[in-house]
């Protein structure tokens, strides 16, 4: 029997868009990832990361909080220290940037590819919907 993926992985979703966050939480749940916490970002983010100890952080690139996440690395007192996901796959990274979403993870990145793909797809979909909305008078 094939080994089950690490579905107990804790995911922190940092997104100021509640509707998109709800959609992504549902999508991740359907993929089997149920430990998703949604926060809007802001000055409390570092404390939220320290309290929740996520294995993965999904963050909206339109928020300023990415620098906060990257800064957690310099402070040895705080764990975990999320590292920018730079999948060996540059195409995936470019798709993520184009969709406006970024990822950080702790430990090895084996189990997280389905999370990246789901989030990229959802951010892209929301972006397209927004664009359509914007052109409608």
């Amino acid at each position, binding site marked *: 029997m094939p080994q089950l993926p690490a579905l107990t992985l804790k995911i922190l979703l940092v997104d100021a868009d509640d509707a998109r966050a709800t959609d992504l939480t549902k999508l991740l749940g359907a993929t089997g990832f149920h430990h998703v916490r949604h926060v809007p970002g802001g000055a409390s983010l*570092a404390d939220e990361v320290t309290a929740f100890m996520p294995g993965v952080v999904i963050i909206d690139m339109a928020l300023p909080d990415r620098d906060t996440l990257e800064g957690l690395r310099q402070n040895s007192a705080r764990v975990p220290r999320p590292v920018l996901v730079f999948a060996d796959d540059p195409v995936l990274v470019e798709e993520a940037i184009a969709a406006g979403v970024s990822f950080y993870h702790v430990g090895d990145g084996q189990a997280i590819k389905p999370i990246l793909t789901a989030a990229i797809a959802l951010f892209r979909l929301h972006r397209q919907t927004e664009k359509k909305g914007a052109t409608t008078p």
Partner: protein
Amino acid sequence: MRIGLLKLTDAAPVIMAQELELFAAEDLEVDLSIEPSGANIADKLAHGFLDAAVIAPPLAFAMALGLRGRACPIIIPQSLNLGGNTVTLGTSLARRIAMHLAWGKWTSLVKARAFAAALKDGHEKPTLAVVDQYSTHNLLLRYWLAAGGIDPDNDVTLAVLPPTQMVEALRGGRIAGFCAGAPWGAIAKEKHLGTTMTTSHGIWQNGPEKVLAVNQAWADAHPGRLLAAQRVLLRAARFCDAPKHAALVAETLSADAYLGVEADVVDSSLPKARGGNVLHLESLFFRNAATVPWHSHALWFLQQMARWGLIPATTDFKRVAEQVYRPDLYALAARSLNLPVPRKTFKTEGHATAWRCAADPSPIDMEPDGFCDGVPFAPAEA
């Protein structure tokens, strides 16, 4: 050409070049992209979504050395400004420090020592925020704290927060102070939440702040466009540096499309006519050879990054400095506008008084470039 910016006064030359249609005059089509984080700028620059950006030199080195994501060759053909940051401390911390200040001249060094004394008064360890671990702010704040006898890694807690969140975090008591670029210190002061304890100039007089960082692959493919962009930014730097243009620059930058703050707080950090006050707030864009990408600046940044463990101490500083900082490209652009080009690519950082820099066709008058602890930084000649 796509140029990335953060919401900071440092972006003035690039924004003014766009608004005054100076890029267009050189037949350059430029898109400005206001980005919410340094991380976005770095990713977009590394993956071809941006060609150039206004960033702090430590981030350029982090990218070039592959410290965040894939290593990405970056060059810095021109600097953009000197100074402009404040170390802003919340009212209660500032009061504790003031209790340790005796009568006399309150230099930045005296204040750092008073801060060290205040930390022994039994209060909780204060949290100070900087805008990015790979920032000038992080290195300047650490330099100042250490000069006063404070261990930045143990005696205080250093955190990272976006500049736009500093004032709110100070209000809520989440941080006790911050080091950030203009106009955020001015905003905290205006709201009576904080005191300007020192500034970039107070820590390193006329020290460098932001630079034009360019994706090397783009620069190699478009040398003509890069040269044109540099010429435009040299003209814009001179424009922004003139005190008579401050009101227009402040108004332009304050627009919602750019900084989205009151024009007054932008104006407070623009170059003014002033008389010998070293603890000034200004971002200087042209005077004091502000646009020159000095190898001595590069070496100082690299050495300080190694001092605090951000890069390995074994890094070949000279090789990295010369790969990233490109005064040769600066010279091409400056010469084409008949602007003076320094004869050397480095200077001693640490002049206590005004001096004259040898340059062709004419020397450049320089204000002091000393550090708060009075120790000069004199990289050996190649």
